[in-house]
């Protein structure tokens, strides 16, 4: 555990960067420091490995004051990842990864085994990448090396200063998942700095929101979403939402799709060609407010629940989340419902469509051979596929609603029969929003980036 007690930082130029910080970073948890640029996140983080020294106050790691530890030794026992990657361009990937072990004088044999093990952990084939130089890797690959370099000597604490903010949205997403997965296995005490609320909500066990050198709120993501301490917190969460709301999502066709798709299919493609590949998911340990926030972000009314290996565990809809929302101790795991229908990768689309139509589902999950959730067939995605195949006239026909809206409203939960869904609980929700419009993903993260820069 890392404890800050009444920590102040006055820079040489007289700038009061940190004002009486009291914080606790719990063992085995990922704490995310978030706040606008210049609020003192990096300063706070860099105090932990003594790259910055406090002007007053004390910092303790597991009860012992860090001033009593030699800074060089301290830093070797703490992993460190920075935004600009910080790989040494004149060293091979292996040398870079083994930098701390080398400083600690491990044997060559032990080092090279460790390097291979670490590269494997983030999906970089050791025999391919070991001897390359950093400039030969993509930005995402470089930062993966940066992450495992911090793990090399198996430190208990890892500091990450906006590690993914310079990456493209795809690599960022990938790395966030990598880090979440590694953390699941390793349980390090991680201090992660970001200015991206989406990122914080995705990976944090606890969020510390800072402003002008002060801690505004420090709590779990769920409680921060439920009980923002003040307008600043609200605007910090809300502002991002507003940005995302401007993305217009078209999803009207979904509920109009009739049940006679099979007859208009010309050739039968597999579900893989038609499915949405990055469906919105949540994890069983997430709080309900987080689940709602994800739904809002992704413009969907239900989420599939997966574990870290992306195995499908169940699903939650906005309705069963709202029903239990008042109970703050409940997590997604408590309210999720089992998934009744899913198709395996490679299944002909017609079968998926029959499932959709026969059981009045709004979507069908696609899993691979090992049960991992890889995509989603929605009525919208089928319609889009058909629109590409069919002449305009028939598409126009499909566009005409001939379903009673009431029916569509009922079976909003994925994989559920209509009768079992508690449609009356939130009558104000428009059925049109029942589509997971996952195509909006790219735009989503892009606009998030623009909003930040």
């Amino acid at each position, binding site marked *: 555990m890392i404890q800050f007690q009444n920590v102040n930082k006055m820079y040489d130029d007289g700038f009061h960067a940190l004002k009486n910080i009291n914080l606790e970073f719990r063992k085995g948890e990922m704490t995310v420091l978030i706040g606008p640029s210049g609020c003192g996140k990096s300063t706070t983080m860099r105090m932990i*490995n003594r*790259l910055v020294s406090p002007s007053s106050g004390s910092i303790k790691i597991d009860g012992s004051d860090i001033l009593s530890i030699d800074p*060089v*030794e*301290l*830093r*070797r*026992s703490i992993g*460190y990842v*920075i*935004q*600009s990657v*910080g*790989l*040494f*361009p*004149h060293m091979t990937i292996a040398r870079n990864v083994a*930098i*701390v072990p080398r*400083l600690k004088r491990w044997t060559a044999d032990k080092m090279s085994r460790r390097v291979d093990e670490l590269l494997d952990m983030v999906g970089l084939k050791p025999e391919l990448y070991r*001897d*390359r*130089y*950093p*400039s*030969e890797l993509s930005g995402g690959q470089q930062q993966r090396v940066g992450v495992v*370099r911090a793990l090399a000597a198996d430190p208990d604490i890892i*500091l990450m200063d906006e590690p993914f903010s310079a990456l493209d949205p795809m690599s960022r997403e990938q790395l966030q998942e990598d880090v979440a997965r590694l953390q699941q296995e390793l349980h390090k005490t991680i201090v992660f700095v970001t200015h991206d609320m989406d990122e914080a909500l995705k990976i944090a066990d606890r969020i510390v929101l800072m402003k002008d050198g002060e801690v505004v709120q420090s709590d779990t993501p769920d409680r921060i979403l439920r009980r923002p301490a003040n307008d600043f917190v609200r605007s910090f969460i809300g502002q991002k939402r507003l940005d995302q709301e401007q993305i217009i999502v078209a999803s009207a066709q979904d509920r109009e799709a009739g049940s006679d798709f099979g007859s208009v299919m010309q050739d039968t493609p597999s579900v893989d060609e038609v499915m949405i590949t990055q469906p919105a998911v949540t994890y069983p340990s997430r709080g309900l407010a987080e689940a709602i926030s994800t739904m809002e972000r992704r413009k969907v009314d239900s989420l599939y629940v997966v574990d870290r290996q992306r195995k499908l565990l169940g699903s939650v809809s906005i309705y069963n989340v709202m029903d239990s929302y008042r109970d703050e101790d409940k997590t997604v795991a408590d309210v999720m419902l089992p998934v009744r229908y899913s198709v395996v990768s490679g299944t002909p689309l017609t079968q998926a469509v029959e499932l959709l139509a026969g059981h009045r589902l709004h979507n069908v999950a696609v899993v691979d051979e090992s049960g991992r959730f890889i995509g989603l067939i929605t009525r919208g995605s089928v319609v889009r596929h058909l629109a590409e195949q069919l002449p305009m006239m028939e598409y126009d026909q499909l566009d005409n609603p001939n379903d009673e809206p009431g029916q569509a409203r009922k079976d909003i939960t994925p994989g559920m029969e209509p009768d079992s869904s508690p449609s009356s609980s939130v009558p104000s929700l428009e059925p049109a929003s029942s589509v997971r419009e996952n195509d909006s993903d790219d735009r989503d993260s892009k606009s998030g980036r623009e909003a930040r820069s």
Partner: protein
Amino acid sequence: MPDTSVNFVDFVDYFWRNRGLMGEYFLQHVQMVTLGVLLALLVGVPLGVLCMKSRWLSRIILSITGILQVLPSLAMLVLLMLWMGLGNTTVTVGLFLYSLNPIVRNTYVGLQQVSSSLIDAARGVGMNRWQQLWRVRVPLALPYMMTGLRVAAVIAIGVATIAPLVGGDGLGRELYAGINGQNSLRIYAGAIPAALLAIVADIGLGALQRRLDPAHRSARASSKRGSGGSSSGKAAADKAVPPVPKAQG
């Protein structure tokens, strides 16, 4: 003025007949230059590192080496001669002083240009100051140091041709003999090998410089493997070409 129209055959003939002496001059020339530049390297690199200690120190060191190089070469050699007497030693010391500036300056620039985020990474990972210097700064400054060495060598080869004025040897002997005897053949016999020597030194040290460049190293490694990394390697190499030092003589 001597007759400048020299027959090529006459020149080759002259050179061949006096090849023993020419070889001797050439070796003397190379020896003075090598010694002087090596000394400058031995003293200049530590001075460049010392410049990193403080702004104040770097200002003092760089102004001294700067002044040394601004002195006209003949004036420097003559002053040294008054103190050290005639001979090759005086010339070598002169070349040493003359080469200091490009080497110190480029070493300093090379050490300084290492990005602060890399130094931050080096500190954060637990390198002490010494390790930050030798494992990060110096390797990344090598191409710059090589530029300094290359500039110093080319200048020294030129300056060494006036060695005979302070009692030194080398290709300058032939050159001045030609001037005194109004013999174009002998002027060419001194000047052409000196010019060739400078060109060869420039190209050779340039090649060495590229070998030491980390960005270039990676590009080579990848082309050997036949992977598609060459474009990124090339971009990095373009970026890392050290600037030509300001003061060249």
